């Protein structure tokens, strides 16, 4: 089970970058791409999340996450 705090931050920033998603429930299995994020949006969402956590992780190390759950896992794992 991914870290809830990291997941919530990803959701918060995804809503900020893609305001059209406001009010939509998010699942761990949602992919940012399928939610309508292009590659710059995705990088933006991840950077905002890292900034919120004050965790420095090269974006390239997060490139393989297929969905928000995996992304939260990776970020949580690397920031531990």
């Amino acid at each position, binding site marked *: 089970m991914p870290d809830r705090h990291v997941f919530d931050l990803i959701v918060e920033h995804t809503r900020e970058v893609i305001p059209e998603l406001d009010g939509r429930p998010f699942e761990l299995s949602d992919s940012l791409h399928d939610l309508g994020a292009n590659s*710059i949006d995705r990088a933006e969402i991840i*950077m905002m999340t*890292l900034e919120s956590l004050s965790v*420095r992780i090269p974006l390239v190390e997060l490139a393989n996450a297929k969905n928000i759950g995996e992304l939260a896992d990776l970020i949580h794992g690397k920031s531990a």
Partner: protein
Amino acid sequence: MASPPDVRDVVVTGLGVTTAVGQGKDDFIAALLDGRHAFGFLQRQGRRPPAGSAGGTAVFLGAEMGEPTLPESIAARTVRTASLSAKVAMTTLDEAWREAGLDDADPSRIGLVIGGSNVQQRELTLLHARYADRSEFLRPTYGMGFMDSDLCGFCTEQFPIRGFAHTLGGASASGLLAVLQAVRAVQSGQVDVCIALGALMDLSYWECLGFQAMGAMGSHRWADAPAEACRPFDRNHDGFIFGEACAAVVVERAGGRRHPTPYARFRGGGTAMDGTRNPHPSLEGEVAVVEAALREAGMSASAVDYVNPHGTGSSIGDAIELQALARCGLAHARINATKSITGHGLSAAGAVEVVATLLQMREQKLHPTRNLVDPLDETFPWVREKAEDYSFRTAVSLSMGFGGISSAICLERC
């Protein structure tokens, strides 16, 4: 057999404008004719030096616009990362686009020239300060957003412009140079319709300090009286006063498609370089561009009814410009100073003043010149305290920029 259309016959079919004295043409022309200004102390975040930093407690004078009312067609997602310059560009372009009815035009035959370079300085300064001690979190969008051409990206994503789009930098002449470049793009056959946009130059306190240090930006003399500081062509001027602005001008081949009744026909233009990187004006350069514009127009100076000058309030620049106008035989033409009301929009100014010229032409009225109490030259037929009715067909507008750039345009009512 019908004769082929004259590709050099270019008309203006749409205008958009956003300034501190009004958003949209109706507000803008009303403010101009009323002489209604918005000068004060610059308040926008990033326009005052941080306490204890370079510049200390410097406060600058100028006119700032309210939050622009964005067209509903611009998605919140687009707005989030748009700079003020980009938001105002899209808003201003929208007005001109709708007026010209460009949804009916072939996107591949529409071009866009955005006048201005380094126009987003204030937002960049704020970003640099915000990330100074945590640069590893710099937002990825900075990598594209710092470039002025990002405005081209925003505008062409929002509007179906597929011919070409690029920026054009020419300091304070950028706006007029963009209009002239748009005209040439239509005349050459590159596109059928071209939009020139004078971008909002969003100064940070650094640029204000620099302009002030070089003696270009006023005002020491009127430091406590912002309403009186902006006074082009008045003996008590002491430099330009900044005014946020943006304007869009749609030009197209006459009769190329069903278009609204044009504001005016392009008659001639001129550009010249003085061979200096310095900010000084040049009598020869200014004379040359007016003469070039009239030569292309095939008009004598005596046929010019109205002059919209560069007129910034600069001590040397105002005097040189009047000398140039006199030498060109334009001392008879009615004249006012749009910057006395709007302030100096820098990259936007030339486009704003083409819009001001054409709105006055449509109204057949000339706006007053604020603070023109003691003119440098009394013999010019100034429009002073009040707007005046004036029946006129032809106009010349000038724009000059640091680095020895002079430019002029000649327009005639259709």
